[in-house]
């Protein structure tokens, strides 16, 4: 049988086989594999879904039906930096909509879309579990708490100017954040290399500066 992911990086191929072995039923690896495939294809593209279908032994239509159920498997190419602004209740009470507006303005991208140069995608999201540090924002799912509207604009400018390879929550929090939900403790070395949750088994995390 031909290998549907022979064009993936060797490291990601190995991750895929480890994920397939992690469950009694291959189908359980579907969502983790969609994340790895999204690294390879920049999003959950048709090719990505077909490859995951072959790996898990189900049809591409079945994979699509699952992928489209979840908001984090993106159906269109995503920018280098995905900026997610929480507008759920606690953030709403403390100005989440204003934060969204200033992110849109600074990025020149409306929520739900990606800029032409492919640098930024902007979205508003439901509660990201940072309500004690409202308003909260994530960049490639790395969190910044207590972001005031003007600081949110500055964050976008900083991303544009410095174009970090690895997005680090602590660094952004220090530069642009405010009130936190709780003491974060020591600085975290790992961050996100793409708009995919940064988690080593999925190949999406790397140590930054």
């Amino acid at each position, binding site marked *: 049988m031909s290998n549907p992911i022979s064009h993936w990086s060797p490291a990601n191929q190995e991750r895929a086989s480890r994920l397939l072995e*992690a*469950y*009694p*039923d291959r*189908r*359980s*690896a*579907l*969502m*983790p594999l*969609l*994340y790895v495939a999204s690294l390879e294809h920049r999003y959950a593209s048709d090719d990505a879904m077909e490859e995951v279908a072959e790996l*898990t032994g*189900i049809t591409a239509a079945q994979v699509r*039906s*699952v992928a489209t*159920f*979840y*908001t*984090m*498997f993106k159906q269109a190419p995503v920018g280098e930096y995905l900026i*997610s602004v929480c507008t*759920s*209740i*606690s953030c*709403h*009470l*403390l100005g989440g909509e204003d934060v969204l507006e200033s992110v849109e303005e600074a990025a020149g991208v409306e929520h739900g879309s990606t800029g032409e140069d492919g640098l930024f995608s902007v979205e508003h*999201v*439901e*509660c*990201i*579990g*940072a*309500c*004690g*540090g*409202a308003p909260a924002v*994530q960049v490639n*799912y*790395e*969190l910044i708490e207590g972001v005031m509207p003007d600081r949110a604009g500055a964050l976008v400018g900083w991303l544009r100017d410095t174009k970090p390879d690895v997005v680090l*929550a602590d660094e952004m929090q220090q530069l642009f954040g405010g*009130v936190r*939900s*709780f*003491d*974060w*403790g*020591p600085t*975290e070395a*790992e961050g996100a290399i793409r708009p995919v*949750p*940064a*988690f*080593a*088994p*999925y190949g*999406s*995390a790397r140590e930054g500066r």
Partner: protein
Amino acid sequence: MTTKILTARMEAHPEDSHTLARYESTGGYDALRKALAEMTPEQIVDSVKASNMRGRGGAGFPMGVKWGFLAPAEPRYLVINADESEPGTFKDRQLLERDPHQLLEGILISSYALGVDQAYVYIRGEYPKPARRLQRAIDEAYGAGLLGENILDSGFSLDVSIHLGGGAYICGEETALLNSLEGRRGEPRLKPPFPAVEGLYAKPTIVNNVESISNVPWMTLNGGDSYAAIGPERSSGTRLFSLSGHVKKPGNYEIVMGITWAELIYELGGGIRNDNALKAWIPGGASAPWLVPSEHLDTLVTIDDAAEQGTMLGSGAIVVMDETTNVVAAARNIVKFFAHESCGQCTPCREGTSWLDDILQRILDGQGRPEDIDLLLDVSDNISPGLAWPPAMTTICPLGPSATAPITSIMRWFRPEVEAMIPMSEVASA
């Protein structure tokens, strides 16, 4: 005296509470050693039953009773619910990031008690840092012989794997979570059968919340009856509350239940920002009916007292709103959340939540019609007949009925304010 079970280590050792070295140097894994060397699985189940602890994920079901339902078929699974997506809730995130070994030790002891050799931790996809911290703890534990084959030479073996979600609130509902873990759409299953009989891969499965399981090491070391002795009888133990909104000191607070709401909001929370007046608060996550200062400040923070007031402590998330809050906008924000997160299987939920959203938006836009007040209640009544709490169910899961909580809350406590936003509504009420 303040009793801290869950957050004691992270408070004493903020610099490294998440590491194996610190965990072991502060009594960590002593409970596991005790369990494996001195206790039978039945004794641990009995201790959890004796604790009277009620689940911290939202439903408040006694953990020991649930464990007692686990069917004998094999294999069995333990699944930890770390989907934490109820708006206002951020406590499990702190437990995962700051004391992941405490959870892991809880998983180990619980798995030994339940006859499980594979546990999964389902963490919401938007929590990469909590997932990394727990993964590092898992790796450390394998390295130290605390996970894998023949743990501490006891003959007991366990593997633990992390599974990230994909951004869907409904996957916090335990059967939707199991579907998601099986690589399916996160749609809640019809019950019965309950997961304890037919859960993951149709095998007996226990699903428990992160905070629930994080209490197990303490219970094992100190005895379930010592846990039961903390706090009010039917709300035993400490509990981690997430406080957010218009308070001066938002954050997670581990407290013994039974204090008043006034103490929680004004003492722990430091009062209202700018010393504004308190208007209302949500006592248990976005799904819970609201409480108001004129009626509830002196009532007690316990699971049963909340039920008596027609609401719930739910996920332990308290969202405080001050006098500047537009309650219709706040209610719409919550309804929109449920409309967005409905999985779509049940018509009352799928259609009803978007209708409620549309009507509230119309009122906010100044386009409300006098009949919209009754329409809001009527649509709510179709989703949840009788508008009681806990809600009557016409749906597969409680998400749909939860969407009516903000509607009944603003109608009950702020009806004149809602009416005032509707042009000519005085004509209707005349």
